């Protein structure tokens, strides 16, 4: 063997295409023969609200004084047809998450927190629990393809009904709950054998298409004597058409959930590769409402990756009436908190990365049915934490709105925004910062 001392070493190189995660996933697939299932929303980097900035007041615009000059935050939802529209005090609601995917304690905490600040929570793909109705001053009842737990008594107890066509994590997919979370109570509510892996339908059993959705919405109104607002929720896919059709079908409120929207469990490929980013969905959704003359008459709620008051303000500036949070809400309750780091490590992950919510072994006691784990979450304390977080979101949004000279957060408009990237500028239809250029918009 000749001496190799003079040959400079080539450092080993990882492929950008076949990176460590990809290779690990291939090995996992080869070992199990089944797709990877996990919770949470899309994790990859996507154009998002961080790519937008507000133009605060200076000489041409004047700000409102903080704390003294009012900046309103309330929203009325459902005025189009409902005899009893609902009024939320802040433009942030808690999105649908099922009892089953979450523990009863977590659902109770969400209800308590939302009620403290005067906003609504939403049931999920499993029906309404008594605790939930008891602890939530405003409760939106989801009407899903599976119809688990659906019954007229609960419909009559709800403050609004949300017809779910899909969600951002998996537009075109149905619910999923694995056997380890189908406890006796969950099984009883869903009329399923305990411990099995639940399969869910992805289409509603008795209607398909907006023409028949119109008849279904009419039926729900007749059952509830036209009292309650009817929402229609879609995963962000073709938002312009979907929002227009929801309006034509008679919806009072439309909810559009972007791909960053979380789920308790679905296939990883569904989460990361189906559906469009929240930022890309808002302007087309608003455009559809404007083209139909229904902006602000049919309310638009945006969800999927809302994290702070800046996100709230940006969604409103682009035309939404309110936003909804899921992942952020459970983070406020303690999901992925580093105090459980040792347990996350034992599960093969670390705090912040834990997303195997389908396993039901959540150390924070939130995405689990295990009584010992679930007991770790004190619903009263959790409710307080959520209320704190929602208050911060609201205060942050108000701060921004006041700085832009607005006496109500709904007066934020697209012209208050600029973009840092070409993608964000094109998606949000606002100019690149420091320029007049909006990609794709013809100069008039």
């Amino acid at each position, binding site marked *: 063997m000749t001496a190799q001392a003079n040959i400079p070493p080539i450092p080993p190189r990882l492929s950008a295409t076949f990176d460590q995660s990809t290779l690990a996933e291939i090995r996992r697939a080869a070992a199990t023969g089944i797709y990877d299932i996990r919770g949470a929303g899309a994790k990859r980097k996507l154009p998002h609200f961080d790519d937008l900035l507000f133009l605060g007041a200076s000489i041409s615009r004047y700000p409102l004084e903080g704390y003294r000059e009012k900046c309103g935050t309330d929203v009325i939802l459902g005025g189009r047809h409902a005899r009893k529209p609902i009024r939320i005090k802040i433009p942030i609601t808690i999105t649908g998450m099922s009892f089953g995917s979450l523990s009863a304690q977590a659902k109770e905490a969400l209800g308590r927190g939302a009620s403290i600040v005067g906003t609504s929570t939403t049931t999920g793909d499993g029906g309404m629990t008594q605790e939930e109705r008891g602890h939530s001053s405003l409760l939106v009842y989801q009407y899903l393809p599976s119809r688990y737990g659906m019954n007229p008594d609960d419909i009559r107890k709800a403050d609004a009904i949300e017809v779910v066509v899909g969600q951002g994590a998996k537009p075109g997919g149905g619910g999923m709950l694995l056997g380890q979370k189908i406890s006796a109570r969950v099984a009883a509510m869903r009329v399923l054998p305990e411990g099995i892996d639940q399969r869910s339908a992805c*289409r509603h059993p008795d209607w398909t298409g*907006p*023409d*028949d959705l119109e*008849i279904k919405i009419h039926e729900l109104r007749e059952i509830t004597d036209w009292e309650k607002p009817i929402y229609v929720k879609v995963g962000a896919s073709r938002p312009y058409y979907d929002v227009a*059709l929801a309006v034509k079908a008679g919806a009072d409120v439309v909810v559009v959930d972007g791909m960053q929207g979380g789920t308790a469990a679905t296939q990883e490929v569904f989460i990361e590769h189906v559906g469009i980013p929240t930022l890309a969905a808002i302007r087309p959704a608003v455009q559809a409402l404007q083209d139909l003359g229904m902006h602000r008459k049919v309310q638009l709620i945006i969800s999927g990756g809302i994290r702070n008051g800046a996100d709230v303000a940006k969604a409103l500036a682009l035309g939404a009436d309110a936003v909804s949070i899921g992942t952020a809400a459970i983070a406020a309750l303690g999901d992925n908190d580093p105090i459980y780091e040792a347990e996350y490590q034992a599960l093969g992950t670390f705090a912040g990365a834990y997303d195997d919510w389908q396993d039901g072994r959540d150390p924070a006691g939130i995405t689990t049915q295990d009584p010992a784990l679930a007991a770790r979450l004190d619903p009263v304390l959790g409710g307080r934490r959520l209320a704190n977080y929602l208050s911060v979101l609201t205060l942050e949004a108000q701060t921004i709105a006041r700085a832009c000279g607005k006496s109500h957060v709904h007066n934020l408009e697209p012209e208050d925004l600029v973009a840092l990237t070409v993608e964000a500028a094109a998606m949000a239809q606002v100019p690149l910062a420091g320029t007049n250029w909006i990609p794709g918009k013809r100069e008039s």
Partner: protein
Amino acid sequence: MCGIVGLFLKDPKLEPALGALLAGMLFPLSERGPDSTGFAVYGNSRDGHSKLTLRGPVGTDFGALAAQITNRLGDVVPVVRRDTHAVVSVPNGQVNEARKILSTIAPEITIVGTGRRMELYKEVGLPSEVANRFELAGMAGTHAIGHTRMATESAVTIDGAHPYSTAPDQCLVHNGSLSNHNSVRRELIRDGITFSTENDTEVAAGYLTWRLRHGMDLNTALQATLKDLDGFYTFVVGTESGFGVLRDPIACKPAVMVETESYVAFGTEYRALVDLPDVEHGRVFEPEPAKVYFWELRH
């Protein structure tokens, strides 16, 4: 998404009422189809002649147009005007010539359909408005199909409205949503079929036209759609002698039919059929999925 209706008369005594009956079938489907309305009526024919249904901008002088065509063809071209549409009658051998003349002297005119017996009308608006504009209630014939439209992925324009003409005396209406129409459209364009919208139904109509052009009969062409078109669909096709119905294999979109001694009727909802004569004693049934149905006049 939409409402579809079809009416095939077995009893000649009902022929003068065809238009009125069809109008009555369209009105209840307004909510599920508020954007535009269209229908095709198969009425009288004139030996050796074909009808061309024309559509023009508001204010078009169809009389003057017909006069110009008369001059160039050397044959008197009668014209019947209904609102933005008009039907002119030309000798069979001169249909292509008439098309050329029109595209030269009046490029803003669209030929919506041609045929010995078929007249085709469609406009943006609710069924009641559109039916009145075209005086549908006064039309007579042996059979007709109609459509009320809720636009899904294409714009609410007149070009997006159904029925779509696929061949002389043939047209198509559709309820549902195709999922591979963009790919099919690209193939058809390569083979010379032209399109003016992004509409999925226009692709289905183009597909049938293409199959028929290559010698397939309509029945076989409809069978072929089961293989080549993907998505959800209920098709009703009008032909010179009758109408056909086909539902996709999954058959999620509703479809109801009723047959009496006097007629066979199709509607997306039973509500479209309630005012038909003696409907309470008719046989009500639903067409099965993936099966081509046909009702034809026996000469």
